[in-house]
């Protein structure tokens, strides 16, 4: 169990973190999700021991490690821009931590071989980082971080510098790796899709504070506030309420709970169709329909439709008023 309690950290006038508390369950894959400059990387670096917080404490297995330097925390850290040791071969990069720990030569050789195999770099051991692609460099960085069998793996926007296809590949690969090794893992990302796809737990951080924490589905279905709702998926406003575009019920017949709207545009996106409409008060609203639904409605630009929010206001799918923003526990 890793706990950060009431962590505050400022850089000059900028308050990166304000009284942040999070608990990370052992063996889980946790995402720190939020917009750039929201404080998520700073929180990760505080947990790693690469930054000392102005106040608050970090506890690992109940032990206060706030002032323990990074090198004594048994962590593996992966940086966005690889932080490769450019003058060392791939092999020496991965072996670095083992050499520091004075691991016996045979044992170290075996471990490095295993790890290079694991990250599919077994044929490139003699190369220098400059001779690798971005994805290969990041896999090397992962192997390097895992070499000393750390108690926790921390990744700061690990796929942020890679192109979309490689990013997608490495995501799935990280998830599988985690399933095999069960090492407590925390990764920082600003990509909600990435967080939803691979994390067991998501901690949403914005403006240096925790907005909400919990499993992906819980955050998606029961967001604590409009920020979380908007950050985790597409939203549109209907009747003063924030709703998911695919939750809106569309009909051509009048209904007491429905709002009247005029169709502006229908955009076919393959499996789904996006309906853009304007409400009577002039507010734009977006609805996501399946192709079949759109065909059944048989509507076109200028037609009148009736839009109904999924549930009456304040029901289960809406916001959860009881949740306190700033509380880490779901």
């Amino acid at each position, binding site marked *: 169990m890793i706990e950060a309690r009431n962590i505050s950290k400022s850089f000059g006038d900028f308050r990166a973190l304000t009284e942040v508390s999070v608990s990370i369950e052992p063996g889980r894959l946790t995402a720190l999700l939020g917009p750039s400059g929201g404080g998520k990387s700073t929180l990760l670096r505080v947990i790693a021991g690469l930054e000392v917080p102005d106040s608050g404490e970090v506890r690992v297995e109940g032990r206060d490690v706030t002032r323990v330097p*990074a*090198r004594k925390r048994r962590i593996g*850290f992966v*940086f966005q*821009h690889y932080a490769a*040791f450019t*003058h060392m071969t791939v092999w020496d990069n991965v072996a670095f931590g083992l050499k*520091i720990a004075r691991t016996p030569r045979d044992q170290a050789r075996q471990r490095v071989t295993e790890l290079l195999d694991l990250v599919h770099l077994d044929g490139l051991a003699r190369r220098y980082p400059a*001779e690798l692609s971005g994805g290969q460099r990041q896999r090397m960085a992962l192997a390097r971080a895992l070499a*000393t069998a750390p108690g926790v793996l921390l990744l700061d926007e690990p796929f942020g510098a890679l192109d979309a296809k490689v990013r997608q590949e490495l995501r799935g690969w990280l998830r599988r790796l985690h399933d095999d090794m069960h090492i407590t893992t925390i990764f920082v990302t600003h990509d909600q899709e990435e967080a939803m796809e691979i994390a067991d737990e998501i901690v949403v951080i914005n403006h240096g504070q925790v907005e909400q924490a919990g499993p992906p589905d819980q955050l998606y279905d029961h967001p604590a506030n409009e920020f979380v709702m908007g950050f985790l998926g597409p939203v549109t406003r209907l009747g003063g309420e924030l709703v998911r575009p695919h939750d809106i019920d569309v009909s051509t017949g009048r209904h007491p709970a429905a709002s009247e709207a005029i169709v502006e545009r229908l955009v076919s996106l393959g499996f789904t169709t996006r309906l853009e409409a304007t409400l009577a008060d002039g507010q734009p609203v977006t609805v996501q329909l399946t192709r079949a639904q759109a065909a059944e409605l048989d509507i076109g630009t200028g037609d009148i439709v009736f839009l109904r929010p999924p549930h009456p206001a304040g029901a289960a799918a809406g916001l959860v008023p009881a949740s306190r923003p700033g509380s880490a526990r779901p």
Partner: protein
Amino acid sequence: MADLPVSPLGLRAPAAPGYIRTGASRAAAGLGPGVALLYLSLMVALPVAALTSTAASSQFLTALTAPQTGAALALTVAEAVATAVIDAVTGVALAWVLVRDDFPGKRLVNALIDLPFALPTIVAGLVLLTLYGPGSPVQLNIAQTRAGILLALLFVTLPFVVRAVQPVLLAVDREAEEAAASLGAGPLTTFRRIVLPAILPATLSGAGLAFARALGEFGSVVLISGNLPFKTMMASVLIAGQVESGDTAGAAAVSVTLLAFALVVIAIVTGAARRLARRHG
């Protein structure tokens, strides 16, 4: 260039209209290196050749084997080696402080580094003699000693390593150092294993230049060394004396020897620096 037809005068015949511009720009591209080479020949190669031809006489070995000359050359090389080694250490330390630490007056200190280059060396020599000569205000008289010479050489060569290392240190990946720390490396190990390999090529070339400069330094040394034969007589001062007494061949012989030392050291250092740098991405 070889794929184009070339006239006996060396002018390239345009094969097709599309080639005209290519040919012209290639000719222009050839002009730059040509001018640079010519300038370098006039400024460096010609004087070196003249010097070497003057030295290349029957008196060459006789001049070099004169006991006083041998002693001066040995002292000069020893002083230059000591200067380069000390500069390498202090230069890296100064560059480190200037890049990594923040303190009031940092910009002033940074500007001060260049002072030894800006100051005429004879003025530097005079300053050092006033400060550390007979009647020293700090009660330290090292005039006419080898330590005094070393001090003068360290002063005039101070900027070489600092200015070579500073930009490289600025570009060092701080996250690589953090990565080393996360893998259990202490600050010293991180410096030795991560930072030093990155700045070593720059340190070597800076130290190589300092060595070459120290070999031939005259102005700052002539006053404080006292020029005692077999004791504090430096090669540059010896050469000046030989020229004054009409021994041009002897002066040229010593000069060519210094030149050879400087070239060999710079070649070795540059080669080593390049070999180290090649591995960096």
